């Protein structure tokens, strides 16, 4: 009886964990709407040019217990040669008090378009990366982070 209860509870817990994983792994459409401040910040950057999806890998934890220091790595597919490289990568946090997080200026000397830092997120939200290529084309990537304790103000 006791054992049966324990098993069913474990099954329930495993079931819940599975559901959480399924939710966090569900891809977020890049085109889903952003907050007006984020839209404005991206618009200011790209003007009338269009964003394409792809090429960008944003590595962030799906769940962050502490919003004050969240590891972020962004990588962009590119040969990083003098003729074809990633010029810049811009990071935005959709629901922070201000959406700007960082702008990276890259050069072919890097050999690989990959950078890492640690960021603050005030609440659960999407992190957006915009990459500018040397030929002027623009790519966008997006990743959600669930934040348990926010990291802005205090």
């Amino acid at each position: 009886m006791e054992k049966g209860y324990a098993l069913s509870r474990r099954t329930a817990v495993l079931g819940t964990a599975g559901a959480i994983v399924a939710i966090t792994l569900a891809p977020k459409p890049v085109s889903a709407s952003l907050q007006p401040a984020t839209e404005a910040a991206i618009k200011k950057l790209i003007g009338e040019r269009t964003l394409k999806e792809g090429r960008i890998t944003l590595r962030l934890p799906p769940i962050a217990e502490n919003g004050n220091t969240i590891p972020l790595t962004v990588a962009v597919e590119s040969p990083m040669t003098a003729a074809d490289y990633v010029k810049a990568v811009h990071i935005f946090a959709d629901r922070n008090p201000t959406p700007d997080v960082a702008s990276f200026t890259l050069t072919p000397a890097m050999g690989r378009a990959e950078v890492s830092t640690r960021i603050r997120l005030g609440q659960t939200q999407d992190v957006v990366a915009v990459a500018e290529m040397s030929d002027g084309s623009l790519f966008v990537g997006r990743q959600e982070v669930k934040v348990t304790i926010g990291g802005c103000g205090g």
Partner: protein
Amino acid sequence: MAAPIGQPRVRLPSNVKAGDIIEIRTLISHPMETGQRRDSSGNLVPRDIIKTFIATFDGQEVFRMDLHPAISANPYIAFAFKAEKAGTFEFTWINDAGTRATAKAELRVG
């Protein structure tokens, strides 16, 4: 009154061969005050952040980062670099007040 910029720390990998793509890791002590936080008496603590990071190799700029208040305290910045030859990295961190901190590191290529 700007917070002092702490001692920078830089780490380069050892046993680098020509052509390797390596990761350069840097860390500097700084509170990165967002300008949104209130102190114990309810007054806003003024913004005071490191806003620029520049990395050069033998005098040539190879990587730059513009930081905003959403970068965590004690900024950690890491970037890829293709090691073609030995040389000297110079790293510069600049705060809102324009104060700079610098560090140098020698890249050895075996």
